[in-house]
C-alpha cells in the first residue's frame, strides 16, 4: 500500500487495524441499529463538552477520544459526560454571560474541578473521559453493507440482497467501469466502488471507476459531500445530469463502461444513449451531426441492469432493449428473508417468563397433569372414613391448599422434571422470519450488449485464424453415428497395435532364445 499512501485510502476499502481521527466509523448500538460517526479529535472544549466531541446515544455518552485509536470491533464503555449543565450553560450564556448566578455556583465549581482534572491529565486541555458504570457500544469499520443500513435515506435504497446480485450479474470486478444513473442514497455507489476498486488512479494506469449520475440537485450535493468524506474521490465520478436528455459521456468523452446500472423511473428513455453506434430514437434521427461517441467500452461486452419497481416499467424497458440490440434479457426479482433463532419454550414446568408457553409440552405431560387433576378430584369427592379423616386431617388441609394453589402455578406435577441447568439451553431451538418482510423491492432486468463486429474485424479474424486446415480432432459431442465410427476405428487401431506388439515381442523372444542357445 505504501506507494499510494499519499492518497488517503477510504475507510470503506482499507480501514486499517485501528480507528483513526477524521475518518468514518460506524457505531453499533444494537443488533440492527448503526450510527455513522466522523471521528473528530478536538483540542479543548467542543460544543459545550469538556471531553471534546461527544456522541450521545441511548446507551450513554461516548467522547470521540474514547473511540479513536482503538482496534475495530472494540466494545467501548460509556463515559460520564456532563450533558445537563451544558444545555443550561448555553442558555445562560445566551441570556447573560457576564454575571454568574448563585444557582450556578455548584456547576461552576464542577467545571473548575473538571478543568483541574484536565490539566492534571495534561491532555491538550481536553478532559479525560471517565468510564461510566454501565452502557457500551461497539465500533465497526464502515462497509457498504453497514452503510446501507445506516445511511441517511434520500430515496429508496438498493439493499444488499439486490446490489450483491446485481454486481455479480454485471460481472463487476476490480478494474471495471460502472455507470450508475440515479445515485440516490448512495448505497449502490458504495457497493460498486468496492467491487471495481483496484487502486486509486495514478498516471498511466487505468483503474476501476464508478461513473455516477444524479438528477436531483440536493441529492447531488449531499452525495458529493459524502464521496469526499468517505475518501472516494478519484474512484467515483459524480455528475449532476439528466441522463435521459444528456446521456452518459464525460466532457464529450466515453467513460468506456462495461457495466451499467440504471435506477431511473424511465430507463427506456435513457437506453438509446447506451448504444454502440448512433441510435435512432423513436425511428427518427437524433439531430446533431457531431460524431457520436458511445459510452461503452468498445472491446468488451456491456452488461446492463435496470431496477424498476413496476411491471409496466419492465415491459417498456425490455421492449426498448430488444430494439436496441440487447440480448440475453432476463428479469428477476430477489426475495430475501432474514431469520431469527430463538428458544421455543413450551412446558408446564418452566418458569413463567416472557416468551414461555405454559401449556403441556407433549401428550405425556398433558396426561400426567390430567391424571393428577382427576386423582385429586376423586380424592375430594370420596367420602372419607372417619379414622382416616382424623388421622390425615392435617395432611388433608395441606393437600387442599396445594390443590388450590397448583392451578395458579400452572398445575405443576408432583414429580418435577429435571430442570435444565441453564436458561439458554431451555426449550427447542427454532428459527423464525422477521415480523415484517420486504416482499418486493424492484424488478431487476439484466441484458448484455455484445461488441460491434464489422466486416473488417471479421476479415482480420479470418486472416489470423484461417479455416480449412482442421485436424481430425473433434471437440464436443458428436452425433451417434460418427461417435460409433470413431470408437470402432479406435478399437481396431488398438487391437492392431496389440497384435503388432505381440508379434514384435515374440520375435524378440525368439531372437533372445537363439542368441542364448548359441
Amino acid at each position, binding site marked *: 500500500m505504501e506507494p499510494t499512501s499519499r492518497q488517503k485510502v477510504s475507510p470503506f476499502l482499507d480501514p486499517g487495524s485501528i480507528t483513526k481521527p477524521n475518518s468514518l466509523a460506524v457505531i453499533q448500538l444494537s443488533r440492527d441499529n448503526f450510527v455513522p460517526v466522523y471521528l473528530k479529535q478536538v483540542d479543548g472544549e467542543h460544543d459545550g463538552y469538556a471531553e471534546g466531541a461527544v456522541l450521545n446515544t441511548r446507551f450513554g455518552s461516548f467522547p470521540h477520544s474514547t473511540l479513536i485509536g482503538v482496534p475495530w470491533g472494540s466494545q467501548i464503555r460509556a463515559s460520564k459526560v456532563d450533558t445537563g449543565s451544558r444545555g443550561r450553560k448555553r442558555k445562560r450564556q445566551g441570556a447573560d454571560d457576564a454575571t454568574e448566578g448563585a444557582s450556578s455556583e455548584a456547576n461552576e465549581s464542577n467545571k473548575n474541578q473538571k478543568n483541574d482534572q484536565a490539566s492534571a491529565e495534561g491532555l491538550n486541555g481536553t478532559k479525560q473521559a471517565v468510564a461510566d458504570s454501565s452502557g*457500551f457500544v461497539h465500533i465497526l469499520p464502515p462497509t457498504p453493507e453497514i452503510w446501507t443500513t445506516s445511511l441517511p435515506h434520500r430515496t429508496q435504497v438498493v439493499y444488499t440482497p439486490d446490489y450483491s446480485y446485481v454486481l455479480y450479474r454485471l460481472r463487476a470486478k476490480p478494474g471495471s467501469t460502472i455507470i450508475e444513473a440515479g445515485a440516490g442514497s448512495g448505497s449502490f455507489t458504495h457497493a460498486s466502488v468496492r467491487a471495481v476498486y483496484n487502486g486509486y488512479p495514478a498516471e498511466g494506469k487505468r483503474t476501476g471507476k464508478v461513473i455516477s449520475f444524479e438528477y436531483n440537485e440536493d441529492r447531488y450535493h449531499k452525495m458529493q459531500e459524502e464521496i469526499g468524506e468517505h475518501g472516494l474521490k478519484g474512484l467515483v465520478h459524480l455528475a449532476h445530469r439528466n441522463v435521459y436528455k444528456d446521456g452518459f459521456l464525460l466532457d464529450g468523452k466515453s467513460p468506456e463502461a462495461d457495466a451499467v446500472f440504471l435506477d431511473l423511473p424511465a430507463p427506456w428513455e435513457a437506453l438509446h444513449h447506451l448504444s454502440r453506434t448512433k441510435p435512432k430514437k423513436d425511428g427518427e434521427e437524433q439531430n446533431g451531426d457531431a460524431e457520436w461517441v458511445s459510452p461503452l467500452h468498445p472491446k468488451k461486452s456491456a452488461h446492463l441492469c435496470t431496477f424498476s419497481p413496476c411491471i409496466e416499467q*419492465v415491459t417498456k424497458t425490455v421492449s426498448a432493449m430488444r430494439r436496441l440490440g440487447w440480448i440475453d434479457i432476463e428479469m428477476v*426479482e430477489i426475495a430475501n428473508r432474514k431469520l431469527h433463532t430463538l428458544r421455543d419454550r413450551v412446558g408446564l414446568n418452566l418458569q413463567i417468563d416472557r416468551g414461555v408457553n405454559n401449556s403441556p409440552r407433549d401428550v405425556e405431560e398433558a396426561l400426567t397433569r390430567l391424571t393428577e387433576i382427576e386423582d385429586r378430584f376423586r380424592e375430594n369427592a370420596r367420602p372419607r372414613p372417619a379414622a382416616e379423616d382424623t388421622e390425615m386431617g392435617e395432611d388433608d388441609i395441606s393437600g387442599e391448599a396445594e390443590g388450590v394453589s397448583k392451578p395458579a402455578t400452572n398445575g405443576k406435577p408432583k414429580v418435577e422434571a429435571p430442570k435444565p441447568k441453564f436458561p439458554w439451553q431451555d426449550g427447542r431451538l427454532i428459527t423464525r422470519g422477521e415480523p415484517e418482510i420486504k416482499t418486493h423491492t424492484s424488478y431487476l432486468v439484466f441484458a448484455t450488449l455484445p461488441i460491434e463486429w464489422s466486416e473488417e474485424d471479421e476479415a482480420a479474424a479470418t486472416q489470423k485464424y484461417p479455416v480449412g486446415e482442421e485436424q481430425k480432432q473433434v471437440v464436443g459431442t458428436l452425433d451417434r453415428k460418427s461417435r460409433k465410427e470413431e470408437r470402432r476405428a479406435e478399437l481396431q487401431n488398438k487391437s492392431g497395435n496389440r497384435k503388432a506388439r505381440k508379434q514384435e515381442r515374440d520375435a524378440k523372444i525368439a531372437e533372445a532364445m537363439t542368441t542364448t542357445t548359441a
Partner: protein
Amino acid sequence: MHSVIRPNSWVVIKLPSGVTKVLSIVPNTTISLGKYGSFPANLILGRPYHVTYEIQDKRPDESFSRLRIVPASELYEEVFAEEAAAGCSTPSAAEPAGVATDGELTLVDAESGEIVTRSTEELIETARQTLTQDEIEELKREGNNAGKDVIAKLLSSHTALDQKTSFSLAKYKLLKQKKYIRRFQILPMDVATLAHWQLEEREASKIMDMRAEMLALVGCWGNVHYGGEDVFLEDPKAASDQGVEACAKVQHDLLKGRWLVVDDTGGLLVAAMAERMGILNTDADEDEVAPEATDAPEVSRSTESAAVKEEKQGVDTEMADTTDATAPPPEKPKLLKPRASDFEIPFSQTNTITVVHGASQPNLSFLSYWDFDAVSPNHPPHPLLNHLLTLSWLQLLKPELDTSYSTPPLTATPETLSSWKPSRRGNFHRKRRRFARTRHIVDTTRAGGFNGLVCASSMDPISILKHSLPLLAGGAPVAIYSPTLEPLAVLADLFSVSRRTAWSSGSLPELAGKSPEELENWQGSENFPLNPLLLLGTSIQTSRARRWQVLPGRTHPLMTERGGTDGFIFTAWKAKPAEGKVAARGRFKRKADAVAGEGEATPDLDPKRVKVEENSAVESEATGTPA
C-alpha cells in the same frame, strides 16, 4: 474478461435447447455440437463473445459449415411482429395486453383461461403434424437454412395451426426452435457462468448447491475486495548452508487485505473470492494495457513460458509473473536481480486468500477453468500463484506435527552442493523452497489479523469458528454459507442474548481468572462452545431470485425453478470485548422497576441491583426492542 475468444481458452457454449457446454477452444480442430451440427474452431477464434452464431449450410465446394452472426433484430423478429400486431409498436404503448383481441386471434374468446384449457385438450400436436419423422430427418439432411426451413415446413404442415391460440402457437414455435434451429452463443468463462453450469447441468452437490444469489451475498457480507497493491518480502538471501534462522520473518505491519476461506465447493468459492479481488484472471492487466494489440499477449505468454523453462520453477515463475504487472512494487527490481535464494517468499503480503483445508491437499479443481492448477510444480504465470496460500488444519493448529513444517531445512556448503549431481541439487533447492513457503504460510496465518472469513464447508461451523475467530482482526466480517439452515441455527444460538448475558455477568465459574487472551482463544466448554462475545450482529438470511418471462402480453414468473436446498448464510462481525465486566444500559424498567429506575442516577448500586438491570438491559439492547 477478454473482448474476443482466444485460442485454448475455456468457453461456455449455449445451445438453443438451453443446454450449455464447457469447452476449451483448440485452434485447428472441429467443434461439434451434436445434432446442431459442427464447425471449425478457427471460425470462432478471435470473434466476439455473447453474440449468437448460426451454423450455415455447407457450401458446395467446402467440407465444413461456416458461421453467421445473427443480428439481434432477427432474434427478436417474432416479438417485434407480436408487438406490432398488438398495436404497441412503440415501447411506450404497453396496454395490459393479456388477451389480444384483433384479427390474428379471432379464435380467442374474451376469457383467456377458458381458451387455454380448450386448446390444450384439443391440440395434440403429433396427431396434427403431417410430416413424418423420416421426412423431418430428410429435411434436416439436405440444406435447410440453419434449421429455419424445417421449422417453417413443420408449421406449414401442421393441420390445426389455425386453431392454436397465439399463446400455444408461440409455445409450439419455441419448442421447434429449440429442437431444430442451428444457433448457439458463446459466453466467457467466469464464476457466474461456471457456477450456473455446475448447478444446473452438472452435480449441484459438488458446489454445495450454491446459487448465484448466495455466492454474491457471501462475497458482499465477507466484504471481499481488492486488498491493496502487491507487497513482497525482501529476499533474505539465505546461503545454502543456512537453516531456519535465515527465513524471512513475518512482518505484521505489511500483512493487509487478507481473507481466510474454508472451501468445500471444489474451489468455486475461492474462484468467486479471487474474482472479487482481481486475482482470478491471468490477463486482466494485459487487456487494459494493450487493448488494440490482440496478438501481443500470445507473444508474451510464449516468451514467458520459455523463460520459465530456462530458469527453474516456482519462485522463478513468480518473477516472470511480476514482469507483466503494470506497476511492480519498487522493492523488486526485476530482471536485473540475480536468482532468488531458496528462502525468498513468492507470496504477496497483501490481497491474498488463505485457504484452510481438511484433507492433506486442497481441492480446488474448479480453478483449472481459469488455467490454475494448485499442484502443478512448473506453473505458467498466474496471479493466484502468489496470492493463494493453502494450508491444512493440521498445519494451522498443530504445525509441530506436520512434517513439511517441522522438519528443519536441508543445508549444505556450496562445495558439497557443487559436487552433487544436478538432479540432487535440484531436489535440495526444491525442498528448501517448499520449507520456506510452508513456514511462511503457516506463520503468517497463525499471526492472524485476517480481514474476513468466508466459508462454505461441510464441516461443523462451530468447530471452524472456534479455531478461526482468534485469527480475525477486530471488526472483520464473517460470512458462512450452508445449504441447510440447521447448522447455522445452532451456531447463531451460541450467540443468543441469554448466553451473552450470562457470560458477561461475571458469575460463571468457568471464566474466573481467565485472561483476555484466554477468552479470545476460548477453546470451548460444554456450555459455551464459543465465546459468545466474540461476534457481533449475528444474523441468518437467505435469498432467492425469481425469474420472469417478459413477452408482450405474456409476462409472468417462470413456472418452475430449481428446488432442493435453499442455502443460507450466517453473517457477523468480529468483536473485541472490553476487558472486565461490562454492564449494559437501556430501558429496563420492566422487571425491576423500583430498583433499576434509579439505576442511572445512582452509580454506586450494590452488585445485586446492577445485575438485574444488566440482564434485562442486554436483552432489550440485543433484540433492538426497548421493553
